């Protein structure tokens, strides 16, 4: 206890939990009380955000380098394993706390408009509040098990919200896919926890990270295994190769959910985890290279798929995977602050992009509803020219596009540039990182291209919505556009959080995070770039972004597009990209089908039916029946037989008692 507002930290998750309980109760008994649901759902989040601001400003006032840990009760006292239900506030948790509650509040507000007419309104807000609760437990937990509770909890909420409209099978399937793919990652997280406990005897962050440099050999097998298993968890939660396939399907959920869970917060949990464990990753250079390498490859790979998607949300989903790849390049390189910085700016501009696409879908859906049309409201081929009907959304999404493409002075430019510069700097010492830098640069080019493509096809050129529908297109209500405006401001100006020294800024986020990251940074090779090299890198990055945008502007002709129902299928490479490199089909063929065959033909029909049911269950029954049959032979029902046996028995006992037979 510090005697300051930091002590109130428990209020933030508690408020979200309270919102879940109240809204859950309303969902069960008064699902039509939408006004109450709105007040509770948005109110608890706004209050939690206020608590977050109070806590973080009080924490900043403490000027402490060590995290402030609150131990509430002993959760699992088992021998030497002492796990407390404990929360901690430190610089990294503070950043995540503000992002989760701040962006979360805006998205809750947007949801009020987006979900207004949905019958599951109360249930939706109950899940959303529950998600915030688990996300806060994840980022505030002071040891691995508490963090794991949050980690699993957000996965559960993700499942519930992806399959929110569960009466369509495709949505329920997408939810299951997300959940099952995440199990693989969670298995990695669990194994990593076991290894860490085995090697250090503790699961508390303070203990583990404090002891790790002395207990674990740098570059040794133990720490490498632990960090690789941790990263397996990250690839699941943060949608990296090879476990990324669930995220595009997760777009079946309501669009604000995609913005909150599948762009701004939950999927960044893996980045947070690596940054949290920066000491361990610094001790395992191989793992660091794996993290950065997987991140770089994912960034480029997902960007290629995004080039040929027509569903506006799928483009953004692959874009999210790609940007998460960048963050992993950052944290894998050891530039924790750069990775977290990109996490923050990405939360701003990607939430804005998703909510903007939500506005677009909302408008399209209403237009098609009014004209009784059954066209796809999410297919960009059915859009076009929307800027004339939705000027605010168009302008704000352009800001986000410029931010994600990396055009100065928008927020994404600073964070992306910092990651690429860090990778290049590490490349001067270890050439492998030059490859990662190159991959990142290529991905940046594609990012600028596909985002411009999305904007051109959605907002520019002629309208392709179909006769009659265009007249019904209009801007969303202010409860939806308002959050967009705030996020637009953050996307444009978020860079001031961390203007690098090169630009005369104070690199504030970098210095703020130093108490958390310096232990890991001390273990990594020293790198330094001269000012001229840095300026060259900046020039290259900006040039790439501009080439991508201008190239898309020049190459793509929205006038030539035809609506989705009339479109011809793609050919050649475009078709491969359209079909996502056939990765889902490959997984089906090499993983899912063999697994289904194994389960069906071997485990079910042989092991379960023959061995367990046949030999085990029915075998035991048959054995018992045979013994019973034998026993029944003794029961003749003849009193004489019983009496004879009885007398013989008595005589035998007497014989024994009087000492006969030598006994």
């Amino acid at each position, binding site marked *: 206890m510090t005697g300051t507002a930091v002590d109130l930290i428990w209020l933030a998750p508690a408020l979200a939990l309270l919102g879940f309980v109240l809204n859950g109760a309303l969902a069960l008994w008064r699902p039509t009380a939408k006004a109450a649901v709105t007040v509770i759902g948005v109110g608890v989040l706004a209050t939690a955000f206020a608590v977050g601001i109070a806590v973080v400003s009080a924490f900043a006032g403490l000027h402490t380098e060590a995290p402030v840990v609150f131990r509430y009760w002993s959760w699992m006292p088992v021998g030497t394993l002492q796990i407390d239900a404990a929360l901690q506030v430190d610089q990294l948790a503070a950043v995540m706390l503000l992002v989760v509650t701040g962006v979360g509040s805006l998205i809750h507000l947007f949801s009020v408009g987006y979900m207004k007419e949905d019958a599951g309104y109360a249930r939706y807000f109950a899940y959303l509040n529950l998600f915030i609760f688990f996300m806060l437990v994840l980022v505030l937990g002071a040891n691995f098990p508490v963090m794991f509770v949050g980690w699993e909890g957000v996965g559960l909420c993700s499942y519930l919200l992806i399959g929110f409209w569960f009466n369509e099978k495709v949505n329920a399937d997408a939810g299951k896919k997300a959940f099952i793919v995440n199990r693989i990652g969670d298995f990695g997280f669990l194994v990593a926890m076991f290894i860490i406990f085995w090697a250090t005897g503790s699961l508390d962050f303070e203990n583990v990270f404090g002891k790790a440099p002395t207990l674990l050999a740098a570059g040794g097998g133990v720490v490498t295994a632990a960090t690789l298993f941790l990263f397996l968890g990250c690839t699941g939660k943060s949608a990296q190769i090879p476990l990324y396939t669930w995220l595009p399907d997760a777009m079946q959920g309501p669009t604000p959910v995609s913005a909150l869970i599948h762009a701004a917060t939950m999927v960044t949990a893996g980045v947070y985890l690596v940054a949290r464990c920066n000491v361990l990753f610094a001790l395992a250079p191989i793992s660091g290279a794996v993290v950065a390498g997987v991140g770089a490859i994912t960034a480029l790979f997902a960007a290629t798929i995004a080039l040929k998607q027509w569903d506006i949300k799928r483009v953004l989903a692959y874009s999210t995977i790609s940007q998460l790849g960048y963050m992993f390049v950052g944290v894998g390189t050891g530039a924790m602050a750069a990775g977290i910085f990109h996490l923050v700016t990405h939360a701003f501009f990607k939430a804005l992009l998703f909510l903007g696409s939500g506005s677009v879908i909302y408008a399209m859906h209403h237009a098609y509803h009014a004209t009784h049309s059954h066209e796809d409201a999410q297919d960009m081929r059915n859009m076009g020219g929307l800027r004339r009907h939705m000027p605010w959304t168009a302008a704000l999404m352009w800001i986000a596009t410029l931010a994600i493409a990396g055009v100065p002075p928008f927020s994404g430019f600073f964070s992306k540039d910092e990651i690429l510069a860090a990778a290049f700097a590490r490349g001067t010492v270890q050439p492998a990182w030059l490859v990662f830098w190159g991959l990142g640069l290529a991905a940046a080019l594609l990012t600028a291209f596909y985002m411009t493509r999305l904007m051109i096809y959605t907002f520019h050129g002629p309208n392709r919505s179909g006769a009659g529908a265009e007249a019904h297109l209009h801007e969303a209500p202010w409860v939806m556009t308002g959050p967009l405006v705030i996020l637009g401001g953050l996307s444009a100006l978020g860079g001031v959080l961390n203007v690098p020294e090169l630009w005369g800024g104070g690199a504030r986020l970098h210095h703020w995070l130093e108490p958390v990251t310096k232990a890991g940074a001390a273990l990594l090779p020293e790198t330094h770039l001269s000012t001229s090299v840095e300026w060259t890198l900046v020039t290259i990055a900006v040039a790439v972004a501009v080439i991508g945008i201008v190239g898309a502007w020049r190459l793509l002709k929205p006038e030539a597009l035809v609506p989705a129902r009339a479109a011809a299928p793609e050919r050649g490479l475009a078709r491969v990209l359209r079909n996502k490199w056939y990765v889902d089909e490959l997984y089906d063929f090499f993983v899912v089908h063999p697994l289904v065959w194994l389960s069906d033909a071997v485990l079910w029909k042989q092991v379960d039916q023959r061995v367990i049911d046949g030999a085990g269950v029915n075998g035991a029954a048959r054995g018992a029946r045979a013994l019973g049959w034998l*026993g*029944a*032979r*003794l*029961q*003749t*029902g*003849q*009193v*004489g037989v019983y*009496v*004879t046996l009885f*007398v013989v028995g008595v005589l035998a006992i007497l014989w024994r008692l009087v000492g006969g037979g030598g006994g």
Partner: protein
Amino acid sequence: MLLAPALGISAVLFTLGVAGVLLRRNAIVIFMCVELMLNAVNLTFVALAQRLGVGGQVFVFFVMAVAAAEAAVGLAIILAVYRHKQTVNLNDINILKG
């Protein structure tokens, strides 16, 4: 006193009772043989009571009381079985056969 002849008669009576229970098939006769065994034991009690105190004689009264109760229950059962089966031959009564 005539302890040895008394115990001898008692043993003979008891053995006759056991043999009757084992060999006869009429439920009434078997029942009477059980009574015979009880009375053989009574004789033993009385005979030994002369040497070991009156406890044995007290026991005899207990046995008589139990035998009387047993006779009532036993005869009732035999009657019920007879009404059911029209026989008291134990070879024909085997409904507990497994």
